[in-house]
């Protein structure tokens, strides 16, 4: 039968208010949060850079095509 003593016995392997364990846990808090934001920051920067390069390349390609087209039409006109 489950009684209060059984419930309390389940706590045996837990040490209430384990302040010693908090120090490393606090270390993980800042290390983990810093690391996740560094990864995210790098991903954002890389994505923005890649998007910028792709946009520039597409623009340049478009310009080249337009220039080729106008050159062709000039040739046919002359």
């Amino acid at each position, binding site marked *: 039968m489950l009684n209060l003593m059984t419930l309390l016995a389940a706590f045996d392997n*837990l040490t209430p208010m*384990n302040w010693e*364990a908090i120090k490393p846990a606090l270390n993980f808090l800042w290390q983990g949060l810093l690391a*996740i934001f560094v*990864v995210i920051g*790098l991903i954002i920067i890389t*994505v923005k850079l*890649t998007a910028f390069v792709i946009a520039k390349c597409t623009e340049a390609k478009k310009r080249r095509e337009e220039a080729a087209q106008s050159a062709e039409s000039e040739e046919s006109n002359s």
Partner: protein
Amino acid sequence: MDFLLQGFQALTWQQVAMWIIGGILIYLAIKKDMEPALLLPMGFGAILVNLPLSPVIGDPANGEHLGIITSLFQVGIEASEAMPLLLFIGIGCMIDFGPLLTNPKLFILGGAAQLGIFVTIILAAMIGFPLNDAASIGIIGAADGPTAILVAMQLASKYLGPIMVVAYSYMALVPIVQPAVIKMCTTKKERLIRMKYSAKQVPQLMRILFPIIVTIISGLIAPDSLSLVGMLMFGNLLRECGVLKSLSETAQTTFSNIITLLLGITIAFQMQAEAFLSLETIIIMLLGLFAFVFDTIGGVMCAKLINLFSKEKINPMLGAAGISAFPMASRVVAKMGTKEDPSNHLLMHAVGANVSGQIASAIVGGLIIGILGPFCGL
């Protein structure tokens, strides 16, 4: 006639209690439509493995006769964490990162919404859980079943069963937990903030490069997250490459369904009464809830912080969508947005934050393994 009574004689009250828990999970799956694909197999599995002399478990200590569920657990989860990792391929295939790529700023919300994980690790350590268990409990806040399984397995937590059950159950409770927390942290004026959505086309090259970029960056900074992030991004590459439509469709449907089906029933291995029924399980449930609440608070507060420095204001509710529960969290935020103002459509922004949470939670899982592994002697 004794052989007819063997089962009854071996029955314990703990096993009956597990049948009731199994029944509740089945009820929630069928009647309340809460993550039925997982809760139903888990619920039935809880009954199945808690029948006395159950041959689906066999005698793992002896090793001579292993039941089907024990074998599935040992091969699919214990040996290589294959099942949760393979499920990530399917998830990656289902995710459209377009809304995130249109507004990469939303990525920050995905990171901030992982705050609850770390705060819960501290609280669990304070209560007295060893660090490996505390971290495995904290990762429930990732709102991501496969990540929770992987971290708990890698850190050799003895609470794998309760962690898995709590992680999957709380994912289903997102629509109940989050609205209350969001309302608590935001004012009506903030919830009414409108955001422009420019439905500009993301070039296919960008969509193809994105999974590769994320894999390389997370692999370099958080190598332990590679198995999760790599599988997620591999799935996404299948989707975006445009030449593997049939593979992508299979991964999204048949493949994901098979893994989900097997994963649900296999998780039940950890729901054997003697390991599951303890006060620690109840504490883990409370800590899991705490992690979810603090994740939501972290995301909302980060959005508010960004608003202090940004010209274009973000609706702080989007921060709550930064958790990994996809697509529930984004649906909850979009629904709350339209409830406050029927003409305020936040869905696409919320999806952007939500998919960033999916990536962030996988990375955080790897980071925790990497940071804590040496402390836990792994």
